[in-house]
């Protein structure tokens, strides 16, 4: 009768050999003509995604339903596969950095840091004290924006609209600072092997300090609206439970692992960038459900804010780049006037930075979990193998285990609680 119905009919099926639409075979229907159908024993297969806002990207879940209960979840990933690891084998180390922006695009600066640290470990480069603190700032700013996006989208998934607006407002303030520093809001390409693309500009420190002073207010507001909200608690408590042993067995990392009660945080347990000298706490959950994962991320925002305040107090003066002309490009003015600087500039741009034969793995605590960068070098300027350990890919693998037996609407909550970014899952 209405056009809408007809669109729906045409949109679901595929095309048969003759170009005529065929019925999608997995939808339920009567088994035979004139037969009485027993609805009670019938299972339904539905496709969730890949184009669906609640799957947080191009994730496709084939779900077998018994009524409203999820019997089986079969995830399909790869719709956003871009072959970054293959591309990395054809690029100099510094040319790989823009690729890392596009993996987990909600925390680009932290990805830049992780990749640069792996290359530096491979080449044996020790970065400057100022660079270390600036990289901590980059990592914690990324954690805040990533968790704010997570909080906003998850609250929308579960029917709360207001926290989304508050969270995105805060994210916007960090994005402004990020834009001030790197010139980009999303594709930051902040780091270079041996240092940073640029020092922070004038006014950045004041801007960040102002942010850290008012940011906890927003967190407290979100806390007041959600944490003891009956609807929120009802939708999230006891949903998608993983025990500590299961979380370890599934190789989960980050807030997913800690919500299950495993106190593991790369910043505390295998410290890098002098994280051991900062005063912060790592929240650990006990139930391993969606609610605990929410509490983890909310508290991590408070802790990141604390770390940011400490970095601003201790930010030392000095250069951001190591003093090594083989690794760091000379300033443009010198490259144009000084013969030696020009040669170094030429060699670096044309030949790249050569890494010694060997391999290095660096895992850092990204907002989503442990981001690993693994380089294997045969002595040339391009890596033989660049592997990203993608935290959200590995966390997502547990979704079938978590969702089976719950209701379909809980599957949405569980999927949201994993905090996936398809750019990173598919790479």
């Amino acid at each position: 009768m209405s056009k809408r119905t007809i669109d729906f009919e045409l949109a679901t099926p595929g095309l048969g050999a003759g170009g005529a639409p065929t019925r999608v075979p997995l939808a339920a229907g009567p088994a035979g003509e004139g037969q009485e159908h027993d609805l009670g024993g019938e299972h339904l297969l539905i496709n969730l995604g890949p184009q669906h806002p609640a799957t947080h990207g191009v994730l496709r879940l084939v779900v077998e339903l018994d009524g409203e209960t999820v019997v089986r979840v079969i995830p399909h990933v790869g719709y956003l596969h871009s072959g970054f690891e293959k591309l990395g084998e054809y690029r100099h180390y510094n040319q790989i950095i823009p690729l890392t922006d596009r993996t987990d695009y909600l925390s680009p600066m932290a990805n830049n840091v992780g990749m640069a640290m792996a290359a530096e470990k491979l080449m044996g480069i020790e970065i400057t004290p100022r660079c270390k603190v600036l990289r901590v700032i980059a990592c914690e700013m990324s954690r805040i924006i990533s968790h704010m996006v997570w909080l906003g989208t998850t609250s929308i998934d579960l029917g709360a609209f207001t926290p989304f607006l508050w969270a995105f407002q805060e994210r916007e303030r960090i994005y402004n600072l990020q834009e001030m520093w790197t010139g980009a809001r999303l594709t930051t390409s902040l780091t270079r092997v041996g240092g940073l693309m640029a020092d922070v500009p004038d006014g950045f420190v004041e801007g960040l300090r102002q942010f850290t002073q008012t940011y906890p207010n927003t967190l407290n507001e979100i806390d007041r609206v959600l944490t003891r909200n009956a609807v929120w608690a009802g939708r999230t408590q006891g949903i998608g439970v993983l025990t500590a042993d299961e979380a370890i067995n599934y190789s989960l990392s980050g807030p997913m692992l800690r919500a299950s009660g495993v106190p593991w945080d790369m910043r505390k347990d295998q410290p890098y960038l002098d994280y051991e000298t900062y005063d912060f706490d790592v929240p650990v959950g006990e139930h391993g459900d969606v609610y605990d994962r929410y509490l983890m991320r909310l508290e991590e925002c408070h802790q990141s804010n604390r770390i940011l305040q400490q970095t601003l107090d201790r930010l030392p003066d000095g250069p951001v780049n190591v003093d090594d002309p083989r690794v760091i490009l000379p300033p443009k003015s010198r490259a144009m006037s000084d013969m030696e600087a020009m040669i170094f500039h030429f060699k670096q741009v044309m030949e790249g930075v050569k890494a010694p034969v060997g391999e290095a793995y660096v895992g850092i605590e990204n907002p989503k979990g442990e981001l690993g960068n693994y380089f294997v070098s045969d002595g040339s300027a391009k890596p033989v193998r660049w592997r990203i350990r993608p935290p959200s890919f590995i966390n997502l693998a547990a979704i079938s285990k978590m969702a089976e037996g719950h209701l379909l609407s809980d599957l949405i909550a569980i999927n949201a609680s994993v905090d996936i970014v398809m750019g990173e899952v598919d790479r």
Partner: protein
Amino acid sequence: MNPSVDALRATFGSAIGRAQEACGDTIVTVGSANLLEIMRWLRDTPGQRHDYLVDITAVEYRDRERPLEVVYFLRSLERKADLRVKVELDPSGELTVDSVTPLWAGANWLEREVYDMFGIVFAGHPDLRRILMWETYAEGYPLRKDFPLRGRFSRAEQVRQALNANPEAHYSIEELSIAEAYDELPPDMRERLRRGQRGTVPESE
């Protein structure tokens, strides 16, 4: 040197190959024959307790003479110690290695990815199919060194295949079997399921 290496040698003897330090990390090469046994020992033995599997990946070198490596990153959460275990595979021989999914559920997707990207078969894996590339992908294994950056097929061929692809071929065998249980499959897909066929590359008209 990491004490785990000496303990491994004492327990498994000649199955343990060379051990090396790279940038402060310990790498130990083991034979593929008793991989599962060695991994189980590393996971369960008190004093080792490498209970956390960080990652599985593979490396192929530009030097064609060098063997392919399957790399396992293990971690002991108690002792805060990492260990990297490698298995070497002869590229001219059969690329098969035992799956560690009986030990770590997290290995499931990681091994699927290695299979997808390198063509290394994990024996005993419960669901070894492509994960990032689609099931009918016929160009080979993208992260192998003999795979060109732009793919094996021309752009025109890739477009032609994409346009001719049957969207229903994207259902996995497992999904087809669920639908079959409820008499929901059309005959051609039922036939595909019976053959256990994973879908085919569409032919040109």
